[in-house]
Structure formats: C-alpha cells, structure tokens
C-alpha cells in the first residue's frame, strides 16, 4: 500500500508519481481540484472534502502543445504547466481554480477553459491593491467561490467545517515553519534541495497527510538523518515567483553553498502567513490571502495621502526579506525570475536597491524554465558565490 513508507523515503515515493496518491483518493470517491498559484484559498477546498493539487511544470520536457494556445513570448512557467496538462499529465483533475493574481495567469485560464472541459472551473477575480473597498470586492469574490463549490458538490459549507479546515492548514503551515527553523543551524539540518522536494511532495497531498509527512520528516531531520555534510557552506536566500526548479537549487549546492531560506510561492510566501481566527472565518481568509508577499500587489505606504515616501515603500514591500536574512544569517541573495515575468520584473532594480541598502550581495538570474537554460548560469552562480568569500 502506498502509505507504508514515511519520512524522506515517502517524499521520494510521492515525487516519483504525484498522481498515484490522488488516484487512490479518487478511487475512494474523493475529487481533486488543480490550481497554480498561492492566491487560491485551499482552506475552502479542504473544507468541502476536495483534494487541492498544485499544478507544476516539468523543466525537462519540451513544450510542444502550445502552438495554438499561448505564444512563446509568455511566462515560460505557466506555458510549461499548461503544456503538461495538455499532454494529459493531470487528467485525474475533476476541477480547476484560477486566480486573477497576475495578468499571465488571468489570460491563460480563459484560454485553457476554452480548450479543456472540467466538471468544475472557477475563476477568482481579485483587486490589485490593499484599499478597503478593494478588500470588500475580494470578500464578495471569495463568497462566490464558496457558493460555486457548494453548488458543484451539492453540500453546504458550514462555518465549523471551514474553521476546522483553517486550523488544519494553519497547523500544516506551522509544521513547514518548524522545518525551516532547522535550517537556521550551521550546517542546516535540511538542505535547500531536500526542502524543495518535501514542499513539492506536500503540495499534492491532502492537508492532514501532508502534516503527518512533515512531522516524520522533521523527526528524521532532528535525528540528523537528512543533515547536509560539510561545515563552511555559504548561506543563500532565493527570491522569485513560483520556484519549483530543483536543478537550480542543486546547481547552487554544487558550488559549496546552501539555500537556507526563500521567498517564493512554493515556500515561505505560502507557509509564513497564517489565517487569523475570526468570528467570521471568511473574513480571516480574505485578509490573509490579499496580503501575501507577491509582487503582483500594488503596495504604497501612504495610500491615499498626497505624498510619496520611497524609502518607506521599499520597507513595506521588502522588510520581510530583511527579517529572513537576519534570522537565517543569509550571506547572499539570488533573485531568480523566469523571462517575461512583469510583476517581479519591474521590481528588480528596487529589490536590489533594498538589498544593497542592507549590504547583502545579490545576483539577478533570468531563466526560460528549461534545464538547458540553467547551464549558462553555472559561471554566473560560481562567480557570485566566489565573491562571498
């Protein structure tokens, strides 16, 4: 049976075929819902007994099905993900949820929906700022998401069920944070690549199975079974949009460095922010999800007042990075983006300004989300890491 293994061996087993466990759950009558982005409220899906599955691309696979879907000058990550869907790698999905987080995702969802039919297909519109009236709109948009889930499953979603699901996901997130705590040691008790493998595994499992797996993995790490070997590794933080590029983390590890911390959708951006428990659980969800650290949100310190304070703006947008850098004793930051990413692309100079202002060496890398496009990064990464001597 699938769940006899546990800890890191279970992680490897899940990664070998992410659909295996989902097909088992579907055999027991469960339904699976695919999503791309950290802005999809998975608590609502879990509360409706639906299995949220994060859709990922495959850097080794050439993109061959996109010629009548999406152009080449387009976010290569999304184009690759949709390519894997069109090649049938996610045929077990019963439903899909897309969010108007970035422009690329908003457009690809409408094109996808025109080409492949699912039982359930929801598009979650979102505001681009944190203005209160924008938050009102987002709240209604979330209500609509909840009611369309109810319509599809034919079951009402009670406040208790939603609150239980929020608690389960908060617990799940706290376990991930506990795993990250182990990376504050020198050497870290879990390497950057193993962290990403764990995060990728749990992104396709129901929340309680994911939590159980995390507990086992944390125990193994505490017992030193996953520990990275040598002592003087340089401690790196990787910033980016959705980073499931295991080969890039391995490339950094090849040059005697370790990714001890990150700010991207597979890692800290998703797990370092809990849903506060409020009388009305939907309000807790709305305020948490609007405030994630993705560059797509337009953040101004003095919204509304008639003045501009650029230094304060940088603090609002990047202070969380400063805290991570301090707590995880980071020596260098790699800003890793895929080409054609606008929200993060416009932020590169200001992010470098901020990192330079706190004297943290940083390197900006652009890839095409293919293993081939990583090869030329070897020299850049090695040079950057050598400057940290």
């Amino acid at each position, binding site marked *: 049976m699938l769940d006899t293994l546990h800890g890191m061996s279970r992680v490897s087993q899940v990664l070998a075929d992410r659909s295996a466990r989902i097909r088992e759950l579907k055999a027991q009558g469960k339904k699976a819902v695919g999503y791309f982005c950290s802005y999809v409220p998975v608590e609502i899906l879990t509360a409706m007994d639906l299995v949220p599955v994060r859709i990922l691309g495959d850097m080794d696979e050439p993109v061959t099905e*996109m*010629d*009548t*879907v*999406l*152009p080449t*000058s*387009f976010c290569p990550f999304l184009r690759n993900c949709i390519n894997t869907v069109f090649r049938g790698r996610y045929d077990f999905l019963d439903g899909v949820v897309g969010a108007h987080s*970035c*422009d*690329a995702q*908003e*457009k690809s*969802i*409408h*094109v996808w*929906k*025109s080409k492949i039919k699912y039982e359930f*297909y929801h*598009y979650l*519109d979102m*505001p*681009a*700022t944190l*203005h209160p*009236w*924008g938050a*009102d*709109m987002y709240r*209604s*948009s979330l*209500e*609509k998401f909840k009611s369309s889930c109810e319509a599809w499953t034919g079951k009402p979603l009670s406040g208790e069920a939603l609150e239980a699901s929020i608690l389960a996901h908060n617990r799940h997130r706290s376990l991930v944070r506990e795993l990250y705590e182990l990376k504050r040691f020198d050497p870290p008790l879990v390497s950057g690549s193993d962290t990403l493998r764990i995060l990728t595994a749990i992104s396709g499992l129901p929340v309680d199975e994911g939590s159980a797996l995390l507990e086992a993995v944390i125990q193994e790490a505490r017992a030193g079974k996953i520990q990275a070997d040598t002592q003087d590794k340089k401690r790196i933080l990787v910033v980016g949009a959705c980073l499931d590029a295991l080969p890039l983390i391995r490339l950094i590890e090849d040059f005697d460095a370790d990714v001890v911390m990150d700010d991207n959708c597979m890692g800290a951006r998703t797990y370092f922010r809990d849903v506060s428990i409020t009388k009305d659980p939907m309000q807790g969800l709305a305020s948490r999800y609007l405030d994630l650290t993705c*560059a*797509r949100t*337009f953040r*101004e310190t*003095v*919204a*509304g*007042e*008639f*003045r*501009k304070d*650029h230094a304060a*703006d940088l603090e609002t947008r990047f202070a969380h990075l400063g805290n991570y850098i301090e707590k995880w004793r980071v020596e260098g930051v790699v800003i890793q983006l895929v*080409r*054609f990413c*606008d*929200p993060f*692309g*416009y*932020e*590169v*100079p*200001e992010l*470098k*300004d901020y990192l330079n202002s706190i004297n943290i060496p940083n390197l*900006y890398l*652009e890839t095409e989300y293919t293993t081939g496009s990583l090869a030329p990064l070897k020299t850049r990464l090695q040079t950057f890491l050598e400057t940290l001597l």
Partner: protein
Amino acid sequence: MPTDTIKIKRLKAMYRLRAKVDDMYTSGLEAMKDGRPVAWSMVTWWHADPVFKAMDLEVVYPENYAAMVAASGKASRYLDLCDADGFPTHLCGYSRINLGYVSRMVNGCAGGIPPEAPMGGLPKPVMMLSHSMLCDARVKWFQSLGRYMDTPVWMMETALPGVEEWNDPDVRKWSLKLVMDEIEQFIAYLERMLGRKLNRDRYDEMLSDMITLSRLAYKTFELRKATPCPMHSRDFWSVMPPYLYMSGDLKDSIDCYQALYDEVEQRVASRIGAVEPEKYRLLFAELPPWHSLEFFDRLAERGWNFVKESWAYNPPRPLEGLEDISDPVERHARFHLHVATGYHADALADDEYMGYLGYPYVKFAKDYACDGAFFHGLMTCRSASTHHPYTRELLMRKLKIPSFQVEGDLVDLRLFNAEEALRRAEVFEESMDYYRELRQQEHFPADNMQPA
C-alpha cells in the same frame, strides 16, 4: 501587378481629428509654463477621464508619448538608460522608454525636460494614475518610477470578471460596486490634492459628452460593414486618440466626428471604398507598426482593405438604458465596466471564455464579412500578443478564416520586416481565396450574411 491607381482614399474629416493628439502635448506644456499641475495617466478606458476633465487637471499619457518617440526613431537612447538601470529587457517597450526618459530627466537634466525630447517632451507630473485594466505593466510601471521621482501614485482598480462569472447577477453587483467606489475615491483623492471640490454639474456634462462622442464614433465605425468598406484602418488609427484619450474640447471632437460620420455615410451611399477594387477585407489585431504605416499603402495596391481593429481601441458597444440612470457615478461606472464585458454574452453563447481581446474578433469577422485576419505579434507587449494563437485557431475553427502573422515590436523597429511580409502577402492571398471558396460551398455565415 501593383498599379499606382489603387491607393488608400483618406477621409477629409480625418485630418482635423488627427491634429487633436498634438494639442494634448502642447496644452500639457502650456500648463507647466503657467505653473498649473500636470498629471500622467495610463489609458483607463474612460474610468478616470471625465473626472480629470471636470477637475480641469491637465493630463498626458506616457503610453501614447512613448509610441510617438518609438515611431520617430528616438527610442534607443531612453531604452539604453532603462537597461543600464537594471530593468529586464522583456518589459513593456513603452514603459522602458518612459523609465529611460525619467532617468534622463531626473539624473541628466535636474528634473527639467530633456532638450532632445520629441514633441517638446513630457513635463514632470504632480501625480501619476496607474490602472489595473489589461496588463501588469500598467500596475507596476509608475510604482517603479519611485526610484527617480517623489511623485505620488494613485492606483485605480477595475473588475475583470470571467465570461461565465459575468452571467451571475451577484458578480455584476459587486463588480459594479468596485468600479463606482474607485470613481468616488479617485474624486476624493483629487479634491485633497488640488484643494478644490469637484463641480458635479461639470462632471455630469463631461460624462454625457463622453458618451455622446463614444456613441457617435461607434456609429461611424459600424458603417464600415458596408462593401466596399469606406474607411481604412489607417484613418481609424488617426481618429482614435480623441475619443480614447478624451483629449481637448469634447464638444469640438463631437463636431469633428459628426463631419466624419457624414463623409463616411456619403461614401457608403455612393459605394466608394477606401481601397478600390477591394479584393480582400481584413481584420487588424492589436497595435499597428506606427513607424511604417505606409506598409498598408503597399498592401492596398494588392487590394487589401483593413476594415476593423481590436476591441481595445474601438468604442464600447452602446449599452441600452444608460441615459435613464440618474446617478452620474453609476452611469459612468456601467459605461466603463461594459468595455471589457461587452462581448461576454456572445462568448458564453459560443462556449468560449476569452471574452475580451480574443472572442470579439469572431463577431467582427462575421459582421464585417472578412476574408482574413492580420496578426501583428509584438515582442514587448504581452497583453496585445497573448491571445494571438488562441484567436487564430478560433477564427479558423469557427469561421474558416485564415490568419497572417507578422512579427514586430513596440520599440525595436528593426524587428518589423516590411519587405519579407510583402513577399509572403502574395502567398496569403492564395489561402484567402481557398477559404473563401470553402466558405461559399459550406455557406458559412461570414460570407453570405448581409451586414446588420
């Protein structure tokens, strides 16, 4: 066998409307000289325009200015500065020109207008308005200018509901509420900034002038369904800015458009086409190569007439019952919201979900009886290029209408190879002929449907 007899017949009424674009810049510079505030704004598809006008705040549009800098071949200096400041090269071409321009203005000219700037340049703004319609560049661009200027930025949101979602009354309710809230909040912001209250009557007047102008433009372009088509896309791009940017005096624009409508109507009556003989009727997808518009004269010599352009640059379809809404803010909001949702119902009926940008072309191809679609893919403009593969396949699947692709870019003029495109145009005519016969055999709606 190009003969010089076939040339694009330009409309006389077009020239007065085309000149109005330059007024936008001269009035901006005059305002600066007399110390009056000037704002920079993204195109907001009529979400902000009546408020700007009613508050008598001078507005200039960096997107339009960047297009002119690129067309006049003066972009490379600003592009190099933008690259040198560390911005990735794949960002929106217009934004890179503006980022470079501001870097030059602040670091090179101590905040003054650079001497080499075309059209007298853009003055330093007192505020900048970002907008969330259509692409991320228009959200993040003005925020990035914070590195150079201490100019406050106001962000105006809009709702972008999906095709299926728009069919749900709840969604319509809260989408409209957001758009109305944004108008009220923007008015409050400008009132705080300028220290004066909005004259609500003037706002109502600006609103009705805007709607009248938009309806008149829409009526004029409907006449282009006639065969032969009386008005070429070249004239459309010249007359578009006055209503897209609501520049200058709206009442004067309405008179100009009335003259345009009469001239086009007269051409339809006497069956005069913009291109004669009109061998092929084509759609044009998204932004034209501003720097090489004579390319269309060469195509006109082959009998190619361009009869309709993107949904994004045409006036929205008229909304019934708009006049009966007493509250001007609600009337304004419904007018703006209708821009991106005008074709959602048609798309839903056709089980297609790219309701704006993509699907309108199916309706245009039918209503304007087109033989082909010209897709101008732009390297550094994703919102104008993302839907091309989808729309090409849609036009072929639904209507058996072939598409012709030419690569270009907003700012790098070398990418547009007119010679090579003209060589392939001859071959594309064979495709258009083939599918025209096919449509007639299978009597597809596109061909035998009389224009509405």
